[in-house]
């Protein structure tokens, strides 16, 4: 792992090491965990450019552009409301089912599409990876962040929709950014593993649709987590998106109990996933350019 120091090394290995302002030492990789936050910060403009590129290209490629971002969760919500709300009559925590479902779909859509993008980002950028150095971590982070533009548009539509039902935001809405952060960390915690594995093994991408389908059913998108018996709630919360979606719904509408046990379990789970994902990604980072 190469290290960057802003000062020249104290004891230079070869006598006359010049006091350069920017010194890099290149050595074989060692250790499991070497996170260079300072270096990430130095490359923040590149992070911005990657996000900018993703967003720009995405809106140029789809014919209806922004409209698609609005239509996708809206149509899903309408169909779900018809079948799960009207016909199956699933309970919806005292909210109109369409609001309940829409409030779950917006964070869920961010999560599932970002997870897909993060998984593919290393493979999609393999040409750049084999030709230029930058901290590889920038790629999954940029993929997780570029989904926020879609999310913001979806959130705006959701907010207006909620107001139209006469549900006014309470102080709880201040928690939205916190829950969003938790969603981003969940994407990274899982995505870092998957993107490194995807670069190393060609068959990982076939797993993704299954993982996302499985995960949708295990998250309170269409049904309420209140259906889960109280004593198993914490177990349910090991799915971090359960905490995110429950929390998000509560933060937006101010209705129902503030999520506690589920959310705490989710936060703990996310922290473990992120730390593990960072270590794994860092470990694989060095060999990615040799393998893709």
């Amino acid at each position: 792992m190469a290290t960057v120091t802003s000062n020249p090394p104290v004891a230079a290995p070869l006598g006359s090491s010049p006091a350069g302002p920017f010194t890099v030492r290149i050595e074989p990789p060692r250790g499991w965990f070497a996170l260079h936050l300072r270096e990430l910060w130095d490359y923040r403009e590149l992070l911005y450019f990657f996000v900018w590129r993703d967003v720009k290209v995405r809106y140029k490629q789809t014919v209806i552009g922004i409209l698609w971002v609005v239509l996708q969760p809206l149509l899903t919500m309408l169909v779900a409301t018809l079948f799960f709300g009207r016909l199956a009559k699933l309970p919806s925590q005292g909210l109109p089912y369409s609001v309940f479902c829409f409030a779950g779909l917006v964070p869920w859509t961010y999560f599932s599409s970002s997870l897909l993008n993060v998984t593919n980002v290393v493979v999609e950028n393999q040409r750049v990876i084999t030709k230029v150095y930058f901290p590889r971590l920038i790629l999954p982070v940029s993929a997780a962040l570029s989904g926020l533009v879609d999310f913001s548009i979806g959130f705006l539509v959701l907010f207006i929709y909620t107001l139209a039902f006469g549900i006014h935001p309470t102080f709880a809405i201040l928690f939205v950014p916190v829950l969003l952060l938790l969603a981003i960390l969940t994407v990274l915690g899982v995505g870092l593993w998957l993107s490194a594995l995807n670069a190393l093994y060609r068959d990982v991408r076939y797993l993704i649709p299954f993982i996302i389908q499985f995960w949708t059913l295990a998250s309170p998108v269409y049904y309420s987590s209140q259906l889960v018996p109280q004593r198993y709630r914490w177990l349910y919360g090991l799915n971090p998106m359960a905490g995110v979606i429950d929390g998000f719904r509560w933060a937006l509408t101010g209705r129902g109990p503030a999520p506690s046990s589920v959310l705490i379990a989710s936060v703990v789970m996310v922290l473990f996933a992120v730390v593990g994902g960072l270590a794994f990604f860092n470990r694989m980072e060095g060999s990615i350019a040799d393998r893709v």
Partner: protein
Amino acid sequence: MSKPVIQTAGISKRYRRGLPGSSGLLRDSLARTLRSPLSVFRRANQETFWALKDVSLEVREGEVLGLIGRNGSGKTTLLKILSRITQPTAGWAEIHGRVGSLLEVGTGFHPELTGRENAYLSGAILGMKRQEIARKFDAIVSFAELEKFIDTPVKHYSSGMYVRLAFAVAAHLEPEILLVDEVLAVGDINFQKKCLGRMGDIARGGRTVILVSHNLGAISRLCERVIWLDYGELKMDAAVAAVISAYQLQGFTHRAQWTRPASDTPNGEVRITSVSLKSPDGQYSSLFRGDQPVTAEIKYQIRRALSGCQIGTRILNSEGVVVLSTSDADHLGVSATPKEPGRYQAAFQIPGGMLAPGSYSVVVAAHLPQRHVYDVVEPEVAFEVTEEGSLASLDGRLGLVAPLLHWETLEDTETR
């Protein structure tokens, strides 16, 4: 003497050929782990090769260093390690200053984006700051001669336009240390000249540059010092003229020695395992004076008794014409001999003064002539006969071979 900005010590890079999961499927890796859980920790039986072996060098500030060598000699691997794209297996390097690397033209270009957008994106990926790109933007566009098309998506560009824009962005990268790999050979002739000129400006501008190229003309124009890598090892590090002439003399396609790779295991009755060329002092050589004998050494393995087989050799010139053929049964006056199982080493010598100056390749085959071929080594081994010590170069004589024949000249006493 200016200060060193790049120092490396014993830089080595090993690649694995048979990685666990080399099929590239997670399924296979998991299956293997389930079958033998401890195999995760076993790394012994993987085949490896060294792309770079123990390279130590020092580059001083403002120096323009050329890097030459055959394909696969480790030039690009060295650049990739210095630019941190890949990590060394052993050794270390220290770099003082910001590094920009140009390993291809158009790094990071996206076809959907316009020329302007791509200039910013590619510039940022190559390591420029946004303000820096903004400041140089007009210069980039006019260098690329694309003023009219800068807001057109690059997917509508011709390949020439694409390359011009890509190089223009790269040419305005101004790091303290610039690593360049073979990007000079782009675009039409005029643009190539412009690129070379720009490289010259960068070099004269006091920047430290490492330049990889097969274009020896460009190397000798731009560099003062050249490093020659061969099979991953640093073969020569000296002033440009000395290295280029040594390199040309060796002829980078000529190889004095070939050993069958361990992975290549034909199951025939005969296996030729190595072919090598030696000079009279017993050293491997692929360069011979005109008057020097060429010794060829062939090692082979007989795995089953054969009633008739010859180890034959053909010497081909650079046009592919067979100049001579010879076999291990020549001195017996037959075309093949019985062979018993075992390992053998055979050698023959082409006398000095036999071959005309030029390049030759060697084909070795174990066969029963016109009946059956057991094993063939296509021209893996090659050598060059120089004009030195050859009369052919003095009087410019013609001929595929240049033996000095014995003439007998007597006074003619009969016709008086």
